């Protein structure tokens, strides 16, 4: 069950610069647990203290927002891509100005 997780540029400091991280997991919860086990600094960026997703962090499984799927229980099939997309402002556009 190899899932590739696309790390947004603003969170690559927490993955040592890696853009794509491959992990195993049959659900989004398992995938993100494996991801944050490999890159612990990501944990507080993605998760609230109670283990739910941060409200400003969107996660897409196969192109669809998991808030419109089954959230962390969304199944993750072998070969699909998970995209993490936090809200960016000052950052994204601050550097553009």
């Amino acid at each position, binding site marked *: 069950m190899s899932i590739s997780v696309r790390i947004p*540029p603003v969170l690559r400091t927490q993955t040592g610069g890696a853009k794509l991280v491959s992990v195993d997991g049959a659900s989004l919860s398992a995938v993100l647990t494996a991801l944050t086990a490999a890159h612990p600094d990501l944990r507080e960026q993605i998760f609230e203290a109670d283990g739910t997703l941060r409200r400003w962090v969107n996660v897409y499984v196969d192109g*669809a927002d998991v808030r419109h799927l089954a959230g962390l229980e969304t199944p993750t099939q072998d070969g699909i891509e998970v995209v993490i997309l*936090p809200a*960016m402002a000052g*950052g994204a*556009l601050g*550097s553009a100005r």
Partner: protein
Amino acid sequence: MTTKLFTEVDAKAAQQLLESPTPPLLIDVREQNEWDAGYLHGATHAPKGMISFTIPNIAPEKSAPILLYCAGGVRSAAAAETLAGLGYTNLTSMAGGINGWSAAGLPVVETTTLTPEQKSRYSRHLLLPGVGADGQTKLLNSRVLMVGAGGLGAPAALYLAAAGVGKLRIIDFDSVEASNLQRQVIHTTDRVGMLKVESAAVQIRALNPDVEVEPINDMLTTENVASLLNGVDLVIDGTDTFEARYALNDAAVKLGIPVVHAGVFRFEGQLTVLAPGRGPCYRCLHPTPPPAEMAPSCGVAGVLGVLPGVIGVLQATEALKMLLRIGEPLIGRLLLWDALEGTFTELTVKRDPHCVACGDGTAKGGAA
């Protein structure tokens, strides 16, 4: 056995075809001076002598229904034969031409309002199906609010001005700095120190005198956003703070004005079209901003100069599509571009029925 290469219809039947649910592509094969004196609503101009060269751009599909007309019906029949010889299969010529059309008392033979200078300047637009004189006139009568005259706003403003978007209202509160020039191509070295909105206005006026620039040296706030949006057809969002972005979103949703949103970071960019009533708003995408201490800090992150160029021009492209009502705008779709990989990724963004700005419980809810 002879196969008929095209059909001939009279003006009344032609009108019925044009009003049908699947109207044919209407092509005027007369000369420029005849076209300038007036043409049929929705027609594309393709003079008969050049039609075998221009038709692939006008009608790439050879099975597409095409209705041709000229002044009296002779040239359009000849043009239909030419097209049949090129493999076009669904051709109709209007017998009696535009003269017969007028004689039958049929409506609106429009006369273009474009000046000779404009016809020359926008000639490549006038050739395009979906733009033409009608579309160009639409652009000249449009007003776009550009929030920011920086990395994204600079290329977007240049292309919108070149395209003849008639009114560009630009708000920014910065002055041009040398470090801007690596990407903000609307500004120049000799204008370092000038207000960005003034510098942008200078460049736009030099590029296209048709464009009326409204430079506003200010910061977008919840207090002034409604007046900034007054009379605006569309917004190019080049905001750089969450406060400004949410203020813009909430006001645009209330007023029903579409926003072309984008962002760039290092070697990557993203954009989407937020169209009230037709798709999600920014709060559907990101209901809340991160607290300041969690917001990724990117002041020193850097950006490849061309990155906001590409994304800003994509914003201008989406703006033109929306203003012209052509194509499939990026509504409900977030496009990510990775310059180093050379890949685009498309994500689906849905309207959130619980959204505090546009959800079902709000005055604007239930429309999408």
